[in-house]
């Protein structure tokens, strides 16, 4: 055993009964991070943990090695977990030991020092090593790598390069001439390190532009001129044929016949996963160790792999962000905190400095499909180059070089597929409006970010400074973004900026409701499979019996949509509005809104409403934006009798449901009318009234494109156009968010409008997140996809959608009927403690 071993752990003898022996091979960022995640989840007592690493150190941040190489960073400063950390957490660290064999049948691993350790669970986190291409002359006559030739991977590599560079040519103390093969990220970092140490550095790259995997040729050209100004000499399109020299490197010969003299060579031609150990152990290795969504090897349920040595769904990642995602999933899985935890791959977005030049890249570097939008900006003199690739309204790629002021916004749009500003230019530049795209640094501290709750920038940054590092935590603490929600992107951007791009992703942000740790599809699966028909059963089965008040409404909405008449309707899961079928007001009274479909009323209806308003001394009678009449200030206990006296059905002006369909005059009287809008609006409201949905649905019909009823900015709108046609708009909004709807399709009859509107609304009901309005839904899914599903029936589900909507229509009951027989004791009892 090595001298740096922390705890006596020979042959795994020190085990505690009832604990699992967890052995981690690899003490790099992946291995250590996984152990950290396990400890964070309280997994410490469940495992006897042994970490075996072939570097004789604790665990360090490999990303900072370029700083060490450049001499900016002290090697001592980059350690993540010092040796004490292992001791404190009771982890046996075998540092400086290389595992040579895995015996999966005996469940044992063997070290090159003759030691062996038994395991119950084994994690391979062996990482990768520099790739040395088969270039002639890389090795000397002794078969070892020539003197002066280096890879760039470890602290030892850095130390050796630094001392070789300091030594000077043939020990003279003069200036070394360094060649770096490879113009990717690693090569540029290595070259930067050498330039910083005052050496003459030549970067040799086989491709025709720098960082060709991440950047397009124009960006590569801008980067080249920038790094040349920093003193680096760049040679493109050069393939190295031979390394010159006997036992010590003296130069390079290229395939085009040219040569370059040098007395130091750094090979940075990429990395190769360390998977030989796994292959010898009989595990499936393709490009790396093949794992499933739990990071488990496909051959052995007790063997896992994380980090650069793992191949997941065909992908091998060489960046740190995916590794963190993998470590979290593996820790969730091993500690059984979340048995459904699954890694589904990472979208790669990186922000880095290459030779001191800011660079951020994510997703595609160039457009790939004919409909992709591509924005490109180049200002070589300042070293600035930017591209953005947009597909179906979503950000699918971006490169920012030299100016990364928009990076927070773009990374967020990329990661979370958030809607993009219509004015695409603002994806690249701040256009001087305090929108989500503004440079967060330039916002003044007292700039009000959340207009609903009056939260300014200083409150948000202060909250981050106080230790809240996730968007959700900041939103909870400051209430920013918890009103209308229009500022949420801005809040998220500021949090990320305040965390210097390192805001923590709160996993619950992806849950359908915060109290049940499942995404919407996973939740729906579980609810169906386990037959969970009530909100309390969902908490019992899927949330460990912990009831969460803030999750009840969302669950109730989902269960009702899934189970229809079979839904076990627990009234306490409803918001007060849905318990008493009226909208609560700021004084604890309620508003009563009878239906006036299409805004067409009658003398009789007006008289009845007037009589009721007078009888109950209604403090305010108000026309609504939905062309109806609102009776405000009704005491809860008066609701049943008000409804009875009105003798009308509910107008549903309170729930997350179909609200209204308003209309212009249309052909009946309007001299411009092209279509019978009032009749259509009345039919639409008659059919869809009260239908529950993830967010409210406000509809309108316009009899001509003058759009007097504002149908183009409704969740669903129909607009009559010349020639007897109707355009159907979806995803419009004119509230906290303003958006013109997208044309779903153009049809000829009222019946078609009703059928397609219904099908769209059903698709929305089934696929939108809770409280996600149609404008967000349409932008997230994309109008092309929605059109394909709803109009062209590309998925063959149209019939199912139609019959599901029909079932909901058939199941409709007017809730105001509860006036006659309250559903719960004291359903309409007053709850206000203080009178007006």
């Amino acid at each position, binding site marked *: 055993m090595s001298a740096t071993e922390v705890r006596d752990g020979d042959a795994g003898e020190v085990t505690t009964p009832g604990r699992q022996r967890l052995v981690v091979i690899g003490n790099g960022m992946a291995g250590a991070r996984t152990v950290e995640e396990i400890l964070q989840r309280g997994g410490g007592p469940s495992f006897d943990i042994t970490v075996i690493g072939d570097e004789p150190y604790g665990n360090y941040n490999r990303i900072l090695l370029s700083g060490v190489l450049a001499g900016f960073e002290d090697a001592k400063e980059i350690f993540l977990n010092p040796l004490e950390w292992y001791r404190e957490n009771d982890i046996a660290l075998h540092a400086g030991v290389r595992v040579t064999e895995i015996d999966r049948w005996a469940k044992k691993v063997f070290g090159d020092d003759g030691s062996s350790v038994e395991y119950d669970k084994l994690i391979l986190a062996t990482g990768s090593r520099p790739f040395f291409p088969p270039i002639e002359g890389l090795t000397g006559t002794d078969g070892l790598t020539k003197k002066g030739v280096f890879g760039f991977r470890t602290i030892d590599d850095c130390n050796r390069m630094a001392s070789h560079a300091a030594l000077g040519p043939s020990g003279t103390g003069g200036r070394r001439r360094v060649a770096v093969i490879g113009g990717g990220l690693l090569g540029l970092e290595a070259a930067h390190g050498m330039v910083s140490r005052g050496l003459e550095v030549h970067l040799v790259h086989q491709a025709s532009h720098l960082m060709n995997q991440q950047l397009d040729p124009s960006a590569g050209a801008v980067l080249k001129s920038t790094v040349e100004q920093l003193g680096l000499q760049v040679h493109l399109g050069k393939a190295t044929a031979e390394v010159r020299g006997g036992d010590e490197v003296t130069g390079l010969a290229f395939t085009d016949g040219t040569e370059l003299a040098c007395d130091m060579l750094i090979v940075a031609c990429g990395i190769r996963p360390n998977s030989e150990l796994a292959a010898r152990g009989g595990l499936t290795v393709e490009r790396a160790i093949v794992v499933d969504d739990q990071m488990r090897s496909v051959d052995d349920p007790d063997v896992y792999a994380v980090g650069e040595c793992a191949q997941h769904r065909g992908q091998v990642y060489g960046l740190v962000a995916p590794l963190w995602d993998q470590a979290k999933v593996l820790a969730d899985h091993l500690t059984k905190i979340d048995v459904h935890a699954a890694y589904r791959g990472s979208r790669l977005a990186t922000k880095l400095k290459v030779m001191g030049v800011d660079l951020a890249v994510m997703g595609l570097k160039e457009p790939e499909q004919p409909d992709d939008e591509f924005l490109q900006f180049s200002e070589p003199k300042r070293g600035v180059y930017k591209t953005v690739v947009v597909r179906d309204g979503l950000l699918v790629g971006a490169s920012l070089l030299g100016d990364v002021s928009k990076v927070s916004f773009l990374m967020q749009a990329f990661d979370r597929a958030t809607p993009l500003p219509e004015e695409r230019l603002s994806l690249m530049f701040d256009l001087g409006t305090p929108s989500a795209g503004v440079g967060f640094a330039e916002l003044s501290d007292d700039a009000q970010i959340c207009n609903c709750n009056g939260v300014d920038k200083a409150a948000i940054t202060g909250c981050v400074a106080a230790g809240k590092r996730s968007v959700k935590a900041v939103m*909870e603490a400051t*209430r920013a973004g*918890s009103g209308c929600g229009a500022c949420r992107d801005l809040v998220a951007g500021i949090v990320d900026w305040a965390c210097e791009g390192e805001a923590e992703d709160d996993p619950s942000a992806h849950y359908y409701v915060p*109290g049940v740790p499942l995404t919407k599809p996973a939740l729906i699966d579980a609810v169906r499979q386990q037959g969970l028909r009530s909100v*309390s059963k969902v908490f019992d089965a899927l949330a460990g019996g*912990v*009831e*969460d*008040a*803030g*999750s*009840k*409404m969302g669950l109730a909405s989902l269960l009702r949509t899934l189970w229809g008449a079979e839904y076990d309707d*627990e*009234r*306490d*899961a409803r*918001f*007060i509005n849905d*318990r008493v079928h009226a909208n*609560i007001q*700021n*004084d*604890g009274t309620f508003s009563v809104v009878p239906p006036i479909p299409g805004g067409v009323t009658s003398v009789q209806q007006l008289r009845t409403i007037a009589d009721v308003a007078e009888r109950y001394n209604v403090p305010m009678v108000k026309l609504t934006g939905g062309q109806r009449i609102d009776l405000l200030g009704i005491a809860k206990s008066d609701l049943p009798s008000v409804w009875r006296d009105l003798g009308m059905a509910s107008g549903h002006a309170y729930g997350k449901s179909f609200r209204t369909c308003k209309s212009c005059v249309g052909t009946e009287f309007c001299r411009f009318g092209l279509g019978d809008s009032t009749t259509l609006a009345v039919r639409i409201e008659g059919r869809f009234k009260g239908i529950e949905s993830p967010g409210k649905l406000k509809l309108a019909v316009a009899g001509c494109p003058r759009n007097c009823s504002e149908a183009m900015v409704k969740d669903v709108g129909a607009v009559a156009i010349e020639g007897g046609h109707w355009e159907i708009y979806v995803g419009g909004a004119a509230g906290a968010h303003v958006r013109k709807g997208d044309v779903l399709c153009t049809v000829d009859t009222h019946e078609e409008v009703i059928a397609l509107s219904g099908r769209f609304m059903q698709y929305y009901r089934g696929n939108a997140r809770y409280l996600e309005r149609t404008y967000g839904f349409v932008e997230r899914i994309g109008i092309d996809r929605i059109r394909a599903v709803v109009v062209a029936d590309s998925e063959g589900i149209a019939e199912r959608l139609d019959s599901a909507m029909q079932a909901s229509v058939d199941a409709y009951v007017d809730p105001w009927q509860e006036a006659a027989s309250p559903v*719960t*004791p*004291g359903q309409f*009892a*007053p*709850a*206000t*403690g*203080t*009178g*007006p």
Partner: protein
Amino acid sequence: MTAVSLAAEHHLGPLSQIPVGEGRVFEVPGGTPQSVVLAVFHLRSGAVHATQAACPHRDGPLADGLVGGTTVICPLHARKFDLATGAALSGECGLVTYPVRITEAGEIVVSVDDRGRADAQTAALVRRGDHRVVELHGRPT
């Protein structure tokens, strides 16, 4: 409760008048000011808690709020409170709570001592920024 307490016990009727998972409002007569308004919550766990009825933020009717675990969310602006302790889970000001027990016959019995009553009323008046007499709704029937 200890013998030295000045708490007065009030019988509020059967627990069955509060649906499980919801809250209802009760008025306890007597004292100065003339009465105290309480929200009594019947949790899904079976526990019963009593607090002041009005949210300290803007007088929202807490009994109309959604309840989960021991948390209630005010229906007006989503301020959260712990029903067992009265602690504010968002916002600054917490709730006055009252000891409550259920008799073997299933009756709700709440204890309101003079200090608790005074606290609740003072809080309400300070909040309102005036000292007018607060009009109270009757007990549910």
